[in-house]
């Protein structure tokens, strides 16, 4: 069964991230690379995407004639998606384990970051929808 692991942050987190030292950034990136390789080797990796800075984010709705109407987002009050992983595992517990590993990715000074990771099951069959 597939799960998506969503990494979210408040807009302030991005500002903070931009102030990380080079060593801290490097440690974090190396952790992520190692972690992604582990997912590959374990045969559970499906997809990963990191998203661009939230300042570029737009809310889009369809206008009267279906044309895109864009609105700025409100960074102060909202959480943003930073990126996600899709994994294919056999149990929810396995997904939680993997999420906990990401959550512990090193932050400033190499301390585990303890980022909240939202774990959601990906629908895969009619059975999941109850029909």
């Amino acid at each position, binding site marked *: 069964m597939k799960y998506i692991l969503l990494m979210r942050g408040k807009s302030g987190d991005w500002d903070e991230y931009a102030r990380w030292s080079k060593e801290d950034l490097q440690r974090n990136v190396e952790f992520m690379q190692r972690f992604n390789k582990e997912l590959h080797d374990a*045969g559970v990796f499906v997809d990963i995407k990191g998203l661009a800075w939230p300042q570029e984010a737009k809310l889009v709705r369809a206008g009267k004639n279906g044309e895109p109407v864009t609105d700025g987002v409100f960074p102060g009050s909202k959480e943003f998606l930073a990126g996600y992983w899709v994994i*294919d595992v056999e149990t929810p517990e396995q997904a939680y384990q993997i999420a906990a590993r990401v959550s512990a990715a090193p932050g400033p000074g190499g301390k585990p970051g303890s980022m909240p990771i939202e774990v959601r099951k990906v629908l895969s069959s009619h059975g999941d929808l109850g029909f």
Partner: protein
Amino acid sequence: MALSEQASDPPIGHLLRELAPHVLGIVARRFADFDAAEDAVQEASIAAVIQWALEGVPENPRAWLTQVALRKMTDHIRSESARRRREMELAGEAARAPEAALEAAPGEDDTLVLLFMCCHPALTPASAIALTLRAAGGLSTAEIAHAFLVPETTMAQRISRAKQTIKESGIPFQLPNAEERAVRLRSVLHVLYLIFNEGYTASSGSHLRRADLSQEAIRLTRMALRLQPEKY
């Protein structure tokens, strides 16, 4: 290549799916190295796709495929010999005494042995499914990856870990004894059922591709039934 694409080219694709498990049985039995035998048969199948498409299917395709797979296996052992001397000696021993192993086979079809091995309870369901489709179903890693909507590298790792598990657990390449067989048959049927369900209940992916999974499960179940020594 997606399953559905292969279905549109029945002569060689279907033939190979039928032949590959038999040939794998012969090579695995002869060299007592399932992991390498599986790779050798895959390589031979790729060679067959290319050559048969150009020159037509040979008169005895099974013999052709067996011979090429055995040659690939020998090449593999030679090339590994410097690095893995000990393993070469083991394989060499098996190769030196192939007659008994081959002669023990004629009454029974090795495909059934393969099915029992691929669906061994030591494997997790996902690993067993992947290995069954590849080794007993004769599907390529890319096809299996497409069917389960995961990257090919992920599926390749899953299959390779499944083979590793089999290697480490020392599961012998032989039919389980009569007592064990009923229990083991249940795990075979469970894996086939899961494959069928994956095709039957899926709402993601193209319909054709998923329906092919159900078809494959039915084909393998029919085969398992046909190969039962006693009526099941």
